[in-house]
């Protein structure tokens, strides 16, 4: 009985974070992007500077008709948004805000997070294939190619951190973190950040949803709530990747008054990274498909391997 209550409470906590943080990031994107472009962004919804814009968007999405194309593979088409959305939720459950504030303390949580987020690709691929639309298919193929290419540098960068900490657990990594890592793991951090943005298919890596070329990629045929789920999964992905970066490279809860304010530090660092991801979207143009692959295989993978070698040598020498 007690166990059941605890599981429920933890699940509700994760679900609340999952529903609040992506909206926070989305609203920040609305306003920050607008002001970076000399605009005001949403100003009406909710009264004060359009704070409820995303709530209003959600209400609008719920009201819209849920269309399934006649030629679509119905069950796969309707199931795809869930496949894209749930991995972010599961990943959020194992990311520690402090050593104690974590919904599910998994031993090899770094590995678990990587494995789970990789499942999200399947949702995009399913959506693109089941839509029976050439743009959707093109988008899905681009997404698959991009996500497979960037999965490798992402995993290598995380491997380097795990090696440095001597732990596969996110909590263990953050506990072993020291400010010296900011320099030592810097190349890996850059690789992780770039690969994370590419995994999220965010600009400048939004070739799979390039609206000028293939409408909206794999999500072209989606409407209403299912479309909103894809959008939500993108923003939930930003939250997951930003929190992951904060735990892996910025020491998570480490900071002044870490005992009381540990979770604030983790979230704060994560929000700064999320802002950085938004900033990249505003400032940079979209990469071409060949440039994408070029960057992944000829720049990021060698850089991640070099970081791994550096970390390995240092760990052996220092030990």
């Amino acid at each position, binding site marked *: 009985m007690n166990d059941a209550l605890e599981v429920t409470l933890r699940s509700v906590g994760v679900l609340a974070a999952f529903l609040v943080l992506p909206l926070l990031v989305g609203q920040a994107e609305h306003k920050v992007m607008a*002001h*970076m472009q*000399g*605009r005001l962004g949403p100003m009406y919804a909710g009264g004060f500077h359009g704070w409820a814009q995303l709530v209003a968007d959600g209400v609008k999405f719920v009201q819209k008709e849920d269309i399934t194309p006649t030629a679509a593979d119905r069950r796969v088409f309707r199931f795809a948004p869930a496949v894209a959305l749930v991995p972010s939720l599961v990943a959020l459950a194992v990311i520690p805000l402090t050593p104690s504030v974590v919904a599910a303390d998994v031993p090899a949580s770094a590995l678990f997070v990587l494995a789970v987020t990789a499942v999200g690709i399947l949702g995009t691929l399913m959506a693109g294939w089941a839509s029976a639309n050439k743009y959707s298919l093109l988008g899905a193929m681009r997404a698959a190619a991009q996500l497979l290419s960037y999965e490798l540098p992402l995993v290598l960068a995380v491997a380097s951190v795990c090696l440095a900490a001597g732990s596969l657990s996110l909590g263990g990594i953050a506990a072993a973190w020291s400010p010296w890592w900011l320099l030592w793991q810097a190349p890996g951090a850059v690789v992780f950040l770039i690969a994370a943005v590419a995994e999220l298919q965010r600009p400048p890596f939004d070739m799979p949803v390039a609206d000028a070329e293939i409408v909206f990629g794999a999500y072209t045929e989606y409407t209403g709530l299912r479309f909103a789920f894809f959008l939500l999964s993108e923003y939930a992905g930003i939250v997951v990747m930003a929190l992951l970066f904060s735990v892996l490279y910025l020491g998570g809860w480490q900071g002044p008054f870490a005992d009381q304010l540990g979770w604030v530090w983790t979230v704060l660092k994560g929000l700064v990274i999320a802002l950085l991801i938004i*900033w990249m979207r505003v*400032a940079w143009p979209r990469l071409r498909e060949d440039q994408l692959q070029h960057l992944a295989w000829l720049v990021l993978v060698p850089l991640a391997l070099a970081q791994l070698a550096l970390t390995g040598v240092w760990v052996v020498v220092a030990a």
Partner: protein
Amino acid sequence: MSEPTRRPDGRQKSGGAIPGLLKGLATTAKTLGRPSHTAEYPDAPPHLPPRSRGVIALTEENCTSCMLCARECPDWCIYIDSHKETIPSPTPGGRERQRNVLDRFAIDFSLCMYCGICIEVCPFDALHWSPEFEYSELDIRDLLHEKGRLGQWMATVPPPAALDPGSAEAGEIAAANKPARVPRAAAAPATSRPAAASRVARERPARPEAPGNIPPDSVSTEPLPTAQNPPTTGSPGTKSEEGEA
């Protein structure tokens, strides 16, 4: 084969990309710090130049139903209906005169392309640009505005620009400042006076009657006023015409 040629290109690009990427970040960050350019229109009125071409206003009194505007309109969006009224001669045996009376003046703003040709061609200054622009409707048919509505917009028309220093006086002012003309009606026989007086006053408001110095015999002579006021007279709106004359 193509790899060695491509590689230096790629390196040059990636070497040249970093400053550009940093510049992009710097530009967006700077813009973030500056106030935005957005004008919150419905909440804050826009700052329009005073001569904005918002809507076409009509001074009904100046219109002589000459149809010039309607005929020049490129998309035929001006509708004018008028009829002729016969004015009996003020004196027995005199010639009757006719004048146009405007029944309907309407502009269909769903067709209007705001070229302003009607305003340019109007010889009587009956049409004016008004900066008013908030007259959208939910139904396109409601954009056909009649003379009543067009007249309401006259209040928003800005006054004409001041004349250049040293330029000739405006026609209306010159006419108003002219020494009063000798009224012929001054010594008219009392019987014909009441009927004529009101008409004369309406015809020539800028020239008030002043009792005085005119040979009493010339009172009832018709030719003089006719020569100066051609048959289109009749409304006080002929001010500008008189000014030009």
